């Protein structure tokens, strides 16, 4: 039997205070797609960063084709044929594709002599590679003009250009439309057929079943097991990853349905924001979740910011109804008003950027918990009130903190998100604007965030849920509007009541890519 192409044995990596990898093992064969699965903090990224030379292991052994190797930096890794595409692309947006590929190449590689760049040669070989692997790319195009799916191809071509045999892809589908995802999968299958090894780091179980040959599951820094993907179900994978049963489909029930659905609490009329939002009208009713589907960068962030008064809208109207009871049905057009006025009128905001906008990471948990609470006293803070509020949130939302004085920035993504969510949900706002609430969170945290959103819905809040995750919207939203280039191109009923999920998924997927109204199947799903 021949030795595996790449092998990691007994890898230990300690960071101050944490052991990220605790005798983890991983075996990769040539010509396979291997999924690496685990919750956030399970050690997937660290393990891959060790293989790519970004971290040095404290103990363990790495073998390539059976012989032990030392990987001290990324240059070593590249020399051994190991390449990695990070979740956040590392491309210079103002450079062309060829310039990005040429960046950092050592002159020992084929193209260019001495100090000269030799871009023409680079471009030629990029073109040849892109044809061979079915990844169409124009070497002369500037990155900033390319869609995300093509940018990802550039990242992969960069690795192939450097003769990578092992391609590590960190959460490769997080930013892709369903169509782009299929193209990526096709390209990866082609790479597998050519004998390359592909590792995808993910926590999307359906993709593992669809794409991977084998799955290695990491938990608490250790390798739990490696199984053939065809032998397991999503439910089994989830149980192995989390260590307990996980409810993958948080289904809404009629009892959770808010009673007062029908009265619009938030309404936007023909809203325009620069070039980003080109005339959007929408209504969110009490006890309803309106989902906004779309690939990132189609105006979602601008929409949320405009509705919260964080960004100026040039025209249109923003109406907020401040109460559900008959007595307080004051309705006002609040376009052009400040964030404070919008909040006072009953809007709350859970931004996509948890660390940059949602919290002040340098401040403590209790300070963050009270950031937007109405002041009790005119001038001085009340420390006891702040801490009581924080304790309330921690208890009600199950936030894990080391203490009230812990820096918010030190919380895990899931716990920080729960803190922000809890804070925004408990200030008495009737309208919640929620942006990408579960991005980057593991299955356990996703589950609890979803439950909280459904609870808020049951309480009669109106929720505008902006998400790039189709599954999230299909699970939670009563209605789904698809945003594309600053317009709502499609609006559909959610999947809750008997519509075929597959048809809905196709229809939304097509709209996300800007397609015109779909075919008969889609019409059925809508009608």
């Amino acid at each position: 039997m021949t030795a595996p192409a790449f092998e990691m044995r007994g890898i230990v990596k300690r960071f101050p205070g944490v052991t990220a990898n605790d005798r983890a093992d991983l075996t990769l064969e040539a010509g396979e797609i291997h999924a690496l699965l685990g919750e956030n903090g399970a050690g997937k990224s660290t393990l891959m960063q060790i293989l790519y030379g970004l971290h040095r292991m404290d103990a363990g052994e790495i073998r390539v084709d059976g012989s032990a190797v030392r990987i001290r930096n990324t240059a070593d890794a590249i020399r051994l044929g190991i390449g990695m595409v990070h979740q956040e692309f590392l491309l210079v947006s103002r450079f062309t594709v060829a310039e990005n590929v040429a960046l950092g190449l050592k002159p020992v590689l084929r193209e260019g002599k001495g100090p000269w760049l030799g871009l023409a040669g680079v471009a030629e070989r990029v073109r040849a590679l892109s044809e061979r692997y079915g990844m169409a790319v124009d070497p002369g195009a500037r990155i900033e003009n390319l869609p995300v799916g093509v940018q990802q191809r550039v990242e992969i071509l960069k690795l192939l250009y450097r003769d990578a045999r092992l391609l590590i892809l960190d959460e490769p589908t997080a930013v892709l439309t369903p169509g782009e995802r299929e193209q990526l999968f096709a390209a990866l299958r082609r790479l597998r057929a050519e004998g390359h090894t592909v590792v995808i780091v993910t926590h999307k179980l359906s993709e593992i079943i669809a794409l991977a040959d084998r799955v290695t599951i990491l938990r608490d820094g250790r390798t739990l097991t490696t199984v053939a993907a065809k032998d397991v179900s999503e439910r089994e994978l989830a149980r192995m990853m989390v260590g307990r049963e996980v409810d993958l489909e948080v289904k809404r029930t009629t009892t959770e349905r808010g009673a007062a659905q029908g009265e619009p609490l938030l309404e936007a009329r023909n809203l325009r924001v620069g070039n980003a939002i080109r005339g959007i009208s929408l209504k969110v009713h009490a006890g309803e979740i309106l989902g906004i589907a779309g690939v990132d960068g189609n105006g979602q962030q601008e929409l949320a910011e405009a509705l919260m008064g964080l960004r100026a809208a040039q025209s249109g109207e923003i109406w907020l109804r401040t109460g559900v009871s008959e007595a307080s049905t004051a309705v006002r057009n609040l376009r052009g008003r400040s964030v404070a006025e919008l909040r006072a009128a009953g809007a709350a905001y859970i931004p996509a950027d948890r660390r940059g906008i949602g919290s002040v990471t340098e401040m403590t948990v209790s300070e963050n918990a009270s950031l937007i609470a109405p002041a009790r006293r005119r001038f001085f803070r009340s420390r006891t009130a702040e801490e009581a509020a924080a304790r309330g949130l921690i208890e009600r939302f199950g936030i894990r903190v080391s203490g009230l004085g812990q820096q918010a920035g030190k919380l895990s993504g899931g716990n920080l998100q729960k803190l922000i969510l809890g804070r925004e949900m408990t200030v008495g706002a009737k309208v919640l604007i929620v942006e990408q609430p579960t991005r980057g969170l593991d299955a356990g945290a996703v589950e609890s965030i979803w439950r909280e959103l459904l609870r808020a819905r049951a309480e009669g809040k109106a929720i505008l849920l902006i998400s790039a995750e189709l599954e999230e919207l299909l699970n939670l939203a009563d209605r789904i509007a698809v945003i594309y280039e600053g317009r709502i191109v499609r609006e559909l009923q959610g999947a809750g009541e008997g519509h075929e999920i597959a048809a809905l998924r196709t229809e939304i997927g097509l709209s996300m890519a800007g397609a015109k109204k779909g075919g008969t199947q889609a019409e059925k799903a809508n009608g």
Partner: protein
Amino acid sequence: MNTAFWVTWLAASVRLAGPVLAAAEGELVCERAGVLNVGIEGTILLGALASFLTAQATGSLTLSLVAAIAAGVLVNLFLAWMYVTVRASQVVAGLVFNVLAVGAASAIYRLALGGETAQRTIPTFPPVAIPWLSSLPIIGPVFFAQTAPLYLTLLAAAGAHVFLFRTRTGLALRAAGENPRAADAAGISVERMRYLGVLVSGAMAGMAGAYMVLAQVGFFREGMVAGQGFIALGIVIFGRWSPWKAVGAALVFGACDALQFSLQLSSGSVPPQLLLALPYLVTILAISGIFGRAGKPAALMQPYSRD
């Protein structure tokens, strides 16, 4: 106004544009690497002093020019350390350095000249007419009957273009100024690229100082730079961070300057103080970003560290 006026005016424009252009070309390379080097004002002054003292001691113009460039590189090693290694605020470090440079220059000047108070002068670079080219009408006397430092400066502009866009190191340096994380991931040392940028701007600012002393005035005064370093910053912005466009931008500034001299001599209708102030006013507006920021390196003024 006749041809002679135009030729005189344009030739003076080119002459006056020289030092700021030299400083601007270096600054441009530095900013392409992601560092705003506000310290060029002080570096120009120290370069001027170094060239003046060397000329006094040795009488060699070439040696004086080399000494100024060496001084510029040396003091910018300190600035690079502040900007890149310490990751200090680039604007604050640069501004404070400029104040320090004025103090240091006047102290050194007094020490070197003892108690002497008379203004010492040194010989300067003579104009060199380039055969054939200098006999072209208008263009000849304007561009090809200038001094050696001007030709050097124009060569440096061409060199900056070739370096930035045709070499591997140039690509790596621009990547460090556009997306340092991507550069780092590609195996490029962002630190090294930024040091390189700051040192290039130091060398060119030193040369700009020598230019003023050795080809324009022939003496040293502590107030002689008079904000021309800041004008160079403005030229980089006007030139949209392109070595060629910077040449054009520098000529416009030089023309403003020359016009003020000419008008001072010819008529009294426009107050000369206003024209004197014009380049500075335009610089302030340029730095404020009022003319747009197209072409600005995306990571300009952002210190880089891995975490």
